[in-house]
């Protein structure tokens, strides 16, 4: 528990500016005092602090405490004063402008370029383009693309130490030729080529050298590049109008929102010590986090999201896949027109019931596809930092190789604006539909989209930050019991006998083909007896007795079936 911070203001600047005030609570953790939400004010003539102050003023009104200096330009009063005004710390996370947008280059798509992409993703950046010798494009097309995309940072890698120099130097020349004046370039390639890279890029670009991502073929070293990307993120955000002022107000360096969510989910995995999946559905990307077999992994599915990327979800998933989640008929063209209009006006959130259901259908498909990509990435061969064997470097992974085990999975945490706008039942079914958990899994949602805030708090004090999230940010919907196998709708699937800690008993037989919410409270013991061809994690027809935790929806039984592996 932090000794210094009794009261903390955390501000997340993203699509909107969302501020929360937390106080230290007895016996431990932080307690939410108030929150405020305002429009983010970062248009070219704007000043991000105006939106921050508007959100903080709401908090002042709710909490009845003065947080802003009389001279508003001086920002937030820190530390907290004896008269109760101000806060001990002001923390800031940001995803303004879609966060840090990077392009990366490596010699071969599935090797150094792949490592470069993961270094960038792992640092919380969005990857706009991956350049490689085998990407099918001509050098002048690379140059044109770099110019068009104008990445905030370029990560250049390639060649093992002492190995190929000519190709990575060719990439350096392409980057130089793009002539994006003062663009930060991180060089994480063959060390022997540094001097020549400096000659090519040192004059016009802001060049940074870090350790080679692949010093030898079998080793991958991502951390130095990630660290540098974090540093550059800090320099990048202050270029946003008003951010220079905001960073002076902040008590700690600004953190990327996605990095903060990643930190929170990683803390959740550690605190619960159980296999889990985290999900962050954003406007342009869908981030998936998982912790299995002691490995924490984050993947970002660029261009799968609910704002600018919303039409792309339909294009990639197909009309039938999206329409299956809609309880009304809609023509393909009408559906795409509505999504295109959302794409060009992402700030306009759905208002009518139909549009809300369409958004949820898209959320399911974006999650499904992002999760499938995640599962393929989380294998024994791939990870944050690992040794690779020469024989399996070129392996293409399949779901069967994935470390993500849906029966082993015990907790799902859903985050993103969509979960802050739908009721608990809709949220639970969305998670079940999109992720298809098997057996027993607890479902929880970040119901006020405060994951970035609490993620930042975990960086200050891991335990206190996460306990605050558990108390005021996370809503446990309940334990889902998902039947593996298929059966005819209406025929018996399984029966449950639940006995709560306070002695309340309940028995229920559930038929195939439904989602049933069983309204029980607290925790208890459950015995599940599946029918012959039904499995709830113990095998076909095998009884399972265990402890479960109910949530706001009690227990959730999903007997719509899952294909057996």
């Amino acid at each position, binding site marked *: 528990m932090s000794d210094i911070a009794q009261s903390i203001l955390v501000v997340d600047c993203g699509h909107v500016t969302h501020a929360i005030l937390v106080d230290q609570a007895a016996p431990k953790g932080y307690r939410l005092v108030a929150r405020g939400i305002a429009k983010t004010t970062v248009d070219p003539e704007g000043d991000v602090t105006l939106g921050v102050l508007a959100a903080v003023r709401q908090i002042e009104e709710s909490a009845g405490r003065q947080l802003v200096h009389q001279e508003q330009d001086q920002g937030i009063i820190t530390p907290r004063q004896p008269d109760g005004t101000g806060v001990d710390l002001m923390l800031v996370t940001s995803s303004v402008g879609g966060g840090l947008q990077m392009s990366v280059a490596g010699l071969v798509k599935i090797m150094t370029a792949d490592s470069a992409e993961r270094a960038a993703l792992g640092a919380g950046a969005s990857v706009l383009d991956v350049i490689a010798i085998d990407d099918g494009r*001509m050098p002048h097309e690379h140059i044109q693309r770099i110019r068009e995309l104008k990445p905030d940072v370029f990560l250049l890698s390639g060649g093992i130490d002492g190995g190929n120099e000519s190709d990575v130097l060719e990439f350096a020349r392409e980057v130089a*030729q793009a*002539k994006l004046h003062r663009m930060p370039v991180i060089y994480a390639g063959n060390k022997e080529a540094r001097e020549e890279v400096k000659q090519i890029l040192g004059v016009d670009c802001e060049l940074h050298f870090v350790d080679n991502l692949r010093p030898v073929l079998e080793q991958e070293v991502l951390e130095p590049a990630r660290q540098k990307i974090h540093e550059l993120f800090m320099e990048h955000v202050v270029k946003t109008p008003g951010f220079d002022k905001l960073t002076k107000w902040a008590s700690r360096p600004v953190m990327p929102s996605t990095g903060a969510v990643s930190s929170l989910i990683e803390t959740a995995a550690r605190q619960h010590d159980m296999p889990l999946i985290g999900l962050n559905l954003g406007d342009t990307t869908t981030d998936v986090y998982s912790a299995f077999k002691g490995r924490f992994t984050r993947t970002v599915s660029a261009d799968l999201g609910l704002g600018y990327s919303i039409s792309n979800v339909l294009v990639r998933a197909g009309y039938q896949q999206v329409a299956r989640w809609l309880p009304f008929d809609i023509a393909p063209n009408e559906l795409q027109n509505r999504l295109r209009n959302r794409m060009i006006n992402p700030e306009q959130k759905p208002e009518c019931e139909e549009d809300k259901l369409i958004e949820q259908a898209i959320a399911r498909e974006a999650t499904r596809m992002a999760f499938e990509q995640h599962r393929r990435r989380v294998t024994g061969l791939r990870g944050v930092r690992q040794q690779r064997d020469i024989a399996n470097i070129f392996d293409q992974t399949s779901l069967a190789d994935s470390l993500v085990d849906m029966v082993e999975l015990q907790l799902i945490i859903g985050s993103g604006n969509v979960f802050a706008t739908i009721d608990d039942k809709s949220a639970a079914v969305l998670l079940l539909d999109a992720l298809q958990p098997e057996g027993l899994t607890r479902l929880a949602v970040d119901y006020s989209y405060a994951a970035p805030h609490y993620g930042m708090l975990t960086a200050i004090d891991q335990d206190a930050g996460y306990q605050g999230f558990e108390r005021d940010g996370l809503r446990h919907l309940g334990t889902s019991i998902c039947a593996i196998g298929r059966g005819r709708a209406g025929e018996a699937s399984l029966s449950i006998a639940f006995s709560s800690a306070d002695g309340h008993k309940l028995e229920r037989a559930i038929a195939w083909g439904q989602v049933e919410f069983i309204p029980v409270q607290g925790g208890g013991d459950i015995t599940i007896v599946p029918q012959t061809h039904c499995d709830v994690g113990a095998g076909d027809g095998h009884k399972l007795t265990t402890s479960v935790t109910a949530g706001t929806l009690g227990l959730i039984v999903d007997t719509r079936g899952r294909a057996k592996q």
Partner: protein
Amino acid sequence: MTILATSSSKVLLRERRLPIPGDVLVQVSEHVLPDTLIARAEVPGTPVGVSLAARLDVPPEQIEKYVLKQVGDEVELGEPLAMYSGLFGLAKKTIYAPTTGTVESVSTVTGVVIIREPNIPVEVKAYVSGVVARIIDQEGAEIESHATVLHGKFGVGGERWGELHNLVNSPDQVVTPELLTGDLRGKILLGGALISVAALHKAAQAGAVGVVVGGIDNSELAEFVGYDIGVPITGQEKVSLSVIVTDGFGHTPMSDDTFSLLSRHEGQQVSINGTTHLRANLIKPEIIIPA
């Protein structure tokens, strides 16, 4: 309905640069039109290797005896490149050129002949009318013009220029093929609330180079482009005319302000670019009306 972002006439500076070094073909103070060539470069063609020794089953050091072309010779796709004749002419084998290009090397070490495909020209034109304000050495120039710039919501196709031609009487009128009459060659067409793919195809066949319209059905746009656009980053589509959507998808009348402004410039030369990047380095499609 949203209002199309507009700006009144102002000084517009546009950098026109090659992606690679080349020759700049204009001079400072020179008046340029949209189709004036500003700079030109050539990208070396792709080298294509032909393993002659292996295919003729002869030692590499002997291939010069069988090659029918010399280094520097031009060769056409399908033209005989090498011929082997053995066993008193009974065993013949001919190797044909797999591509068109120039013979770059004949290696007696590897037994491989390299044919370099023709250079690829890379050009940049002025795109807007104006005056050359500055030369960018080996890359291009900066063009200064006085113009009004309007931004649409979405577009496809790259830079085009031509005479603005109004097809409709009101911003809510739908463009049907029947409205496409007269000489449309080289013109940029102004529509109202919607345009069908049939009308787009007819416009393209008639030689029109652009369409500016209030709304469009996604399915019609996809059919015109040839595929459904996923990631909202456009401009590289292989379409014969660029399309700019000013207000939205579906039946969406053009905003009165936009329609009125564009209608006033009927018959005037304008430049348009459908390139749209909705995320990352936001780029909106544009219509440039010289003052």
